[in-house]
């Protein structure tokens, strides 16, 4: 196969560690027009962050597409109400675009609140709302006054930046709720879990750890989320923020407004999960029993998963992994987790990493690892083949590319079906990676059949 070329202007976003080019990642740029980018928009960022709040109304103000494509696509589980899994849209038509959609929005909102009695309503502005100039804020104020529930505009017009700007818009909407709590008094030994969305039930695992440590979880933002719980967030003494910055903006605002400090953690992999829990215990050092319980918890949890990890490691040692994720923070954890099961990372990329992120990534990776920002499918395919990867970790659009190349795949995005967080999540991850990498099917793939280096179980 002829070598795949890369866009000239993309050369500053692709580096090979230890290569001849100096490492100077040009990231946080808008994607080039015409690039087959794997990135999404502002609306997408807001939608994924707020979506798990299960007792709120999520109304999408715009033509139908934005509502259709985001109808129940994220496996964010709820232990109670499931209003978030319905799809509500003002379904703007041509006449609305000409005459404005405010009237329609107001009618739709009133009708929905009347019928479903949600605890709050989030109104997502899509591209077109920003152009036709609907005063969504005014409609929200009016409906809030009439109904008495928080009606909150989310300024997520798709073109107003990247997915990251959508996270910020979602944080603004969340902060709108948080500020409604009058004179919050901090509760002892209490935290908020931020940036954890309960995909596959992950929130429940993390919450269990904290409870075992004797920590009071005030609210989870937004996994298995409830309006009332989010509103109470300012009564916690620490914000523990997960995920690459999707909810960091909220933590910063809460620090400024209430003086609540925050720490950034990851619950992925043994190392990072332990680190997260120890750091929280460390924060509450005035209560030494917390650290004691934390040690005991981690010891027991690690003991439980290690034998399983050792088993899969036998088959996976020396296998090569490529990963392309949304935020770079997740990539750090994945690299450590892959090391735990003996795999080498040959490609690491992210959609939204910052230059500090990429510097960390570079330091974590071995020589020869390709590091890229905002990659396109051709680049991903090129390096997967050149580096002879055995596994790809990515999201929905990367999955079929990995399979076409005849290698294993693990979804580490919205479509993961089993929890990958925490200690048991690591065991699940190892099992999933093992299943896909050692599947006998790859021995039948023409490209790999001739030079298969693997220990496929099919042999």
């Amino acid at each position, binding site marked *: 196969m002829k070598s795949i*070329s890369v*866009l*000239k202007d993309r050369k500053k976003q692709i580096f090979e560690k230890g290569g001849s080019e100096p490492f100077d990642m040009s990231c946080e740029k*808008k*994607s*080039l*027009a*015409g*690039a*087959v*980018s*794997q*990135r*999404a*928009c*502002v609306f*997408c960022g807001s939608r994924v962050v707020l979506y798990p709040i299960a007792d709120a109304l999520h109304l999408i103000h715009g*033509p*139908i*597409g*934005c509502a*259709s*494509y985001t*109808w129940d696509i994220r496996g964010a589980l709820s232990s109670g109400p499931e209003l978030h*899994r*319905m*799809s*509500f*849209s003002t*379904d*703007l*038509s*041509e006449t609305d*675009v000409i005459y404005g959609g405010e009237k*329609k929005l107001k*009618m739709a909102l009133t*009708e*929905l609140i009347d*019928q479903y009695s949600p605890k709050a309503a989030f109104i997502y502005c*899509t*591209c*077109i709302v920003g*152009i*036709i100039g609907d005063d969504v804020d005014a409609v929200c104020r009016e409906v809030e006054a009439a109904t008495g529930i928080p009606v909150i505009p989310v300024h997520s017009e*798709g*073109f107003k930046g*990247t997915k990251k700007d959508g996270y910020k818009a979602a944080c603004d909407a969340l902060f709108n709720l948080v500020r409604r709590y009058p004179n919050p008094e901090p509760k002892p030994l209490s935290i908020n879990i931020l940036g954890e969305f309960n995909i596959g039930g992950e929130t429940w695992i993390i919450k269990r750890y904290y409870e075992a440590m004797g920590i009071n979880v005030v609210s989870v933002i937004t996994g298995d989320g409830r309006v009332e719980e989010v509103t109470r967030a300012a009564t916690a003494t620490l914000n523990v923020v997960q995920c690459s910055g999707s909810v960091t903006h909220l933590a910063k605002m809460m620090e400024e407004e209430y003086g609540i400090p925050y720490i950034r953690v990851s619950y992925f992999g043994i190392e990072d999960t332990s680190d997260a829990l120890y750091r929280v215990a460390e924060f509450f050092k005035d209560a030494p029993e917390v650290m004691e319980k934390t040690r005991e918890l981690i010891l027991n949890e690690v003991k439980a998963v290690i034998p399983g990890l050792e088993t899969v490691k036998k088959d996976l040692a020396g296998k090569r992994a490529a990963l392309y994720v949304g935020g770079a923070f997740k990539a750090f954890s994945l690299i450590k987790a892959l090391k735990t099961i003996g795999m080498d990372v040959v490609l690491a990329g992210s959609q939204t990493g910052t230059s500090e992120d990429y510097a960390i990534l570079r330091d974590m990776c071995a020589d020869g690892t390709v590091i890229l920002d905002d990659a396109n*499918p051709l680049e991903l*395919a090129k390096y997967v083949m050149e580096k002879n990867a055995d596994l790809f970790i990515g999201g*929905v*659009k990367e999955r*079929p*590319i990995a*399979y*076409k*190349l*005849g290698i294993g795949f693990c979804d580490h995005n919205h479509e993961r079906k089993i929890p990958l967080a925490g200690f048991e999540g690591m065991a699940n991850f190892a099992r999933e990676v093992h299943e896909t990498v050692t599947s006998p099917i790859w021995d039948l*793939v*023409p490209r790999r*059949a001739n030079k298969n280096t693997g220990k496929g179980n099919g042999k």
Partner: protein
Amino acid sequence: MLLRHTNTEIKERSSLTVNPAKTCQPIGAMYAALGIHGCLPHSHGSQGCCAYHRSTLTRHYREPVMAATSSFTEGSSVFGGQANLVQAIDNIFTTYDPDLIAVHTTCLSETIGDDVNQIVSKAVNDGKVPEGKHVIHASTPSYVGSHITGFANMTKSMAIQFAQKTGKSNGKFNIVPGFVEPSDMVEIRRLTTELGLKPILFPDTSGVLNGPLTGKYSMFPKGGVTIDELKSTGDSIGSIGLGPLASADAVRALDTQFKVPCQVLDLPIGMLATDRFIDTLRTAAGVSVPDTITKERGMLLDVISDMHQYLYGKKVALAGDPDHLIPLTEFLITMGMKPVHIVTGTPGKAFEKRIKEMTSHLDYEVNVKGPGDMFTLHQWIKNDPVDLLMANTYGKYIARDDDIPYVRYGFPILDRIGHSYFPSVGYQGGLRLIEKILDAIMDRLDRDAPEEKFELVM
């Protein structure tokens, strides 16, 4: 109960869609464009549109779906997207080297008033379109019509922006298959060829969205109608458009502009609609129906007669796209089933009218709505329960909550395979539909039968 919120009291909703039975134009345009060989679809709008369409198509086909985007910024939405599109065209040809780019618009670029025709001309004049390469475009505002409209618009564009009339007949027939699966396109081509016609089938996503695993990744897989074929559509003997909403615009435009006589038929779903399609092909080819096809028809009839007692009188709820629902309703009626609730999200008065005509002779009430949504369908079902639900993947909520036998049919199907590989058009496709319907109904009989009535032979 996931849809615990569905109540039985049906109110007219004028400003609200709940659980849509449609999506927006651009994804249909993207799907159509993927049916041209060597084509990179291009979304002229924000980055998210393109990402969502690619994700949805990827989930439905489980294949890589390639498309580029103009990546609108706040600046482009104030000053217009011309600079983005011209740069995009340049970048795409330089890097990905497709044979053509098929640009579709979005609600954003339409509302700010971008004239894509003019922008493409500018790109050509500026030398951004290399010799022998092409750019076609379609206007597909998301606030008009549905995904079907977008498919129709792009299909029309690919015909009229390439077609030429040399005055010399190519001896072929243009067949526009409609918004159907790659497997259906293969079947439509086979039937056309069996009847002795040489088809130019466009768009043709077979080979593109149901390709083999080779261990290599190709951005432009082997399938798709070629540019030379599209150019030649103006020299064809005639055109047949299958599915009025998706295909009529294209064949009518070829008729008007290039005097290629056209006929518009229903999608060949079920016995009677396939009969009409075969009859049209037979007349066009001036042949009698070959024995192979007569045999296929006979087999379909045979299976229906073998199993009609399981189908007779069963009430069915349907959600989907108008072009599919019309012949599907007809098919169900011919088998003695009762399609009682029918909804599409796609706007257009013709749909309700056709369904009403088709069902006026029946001795039961038929609820039909276009545009409607899945919430309304569910309310109808709650008021008047059914024995079978046929809908896209979003039907699974209703099927689960009300414990209804369910056949996945339509777009998108995000949780099962098969649609890309096994057709539901033609007599053979009819067999597949019946198999699926019977499996659903008879599995339910087995599940619910008391032990003494649980039967081996059915």
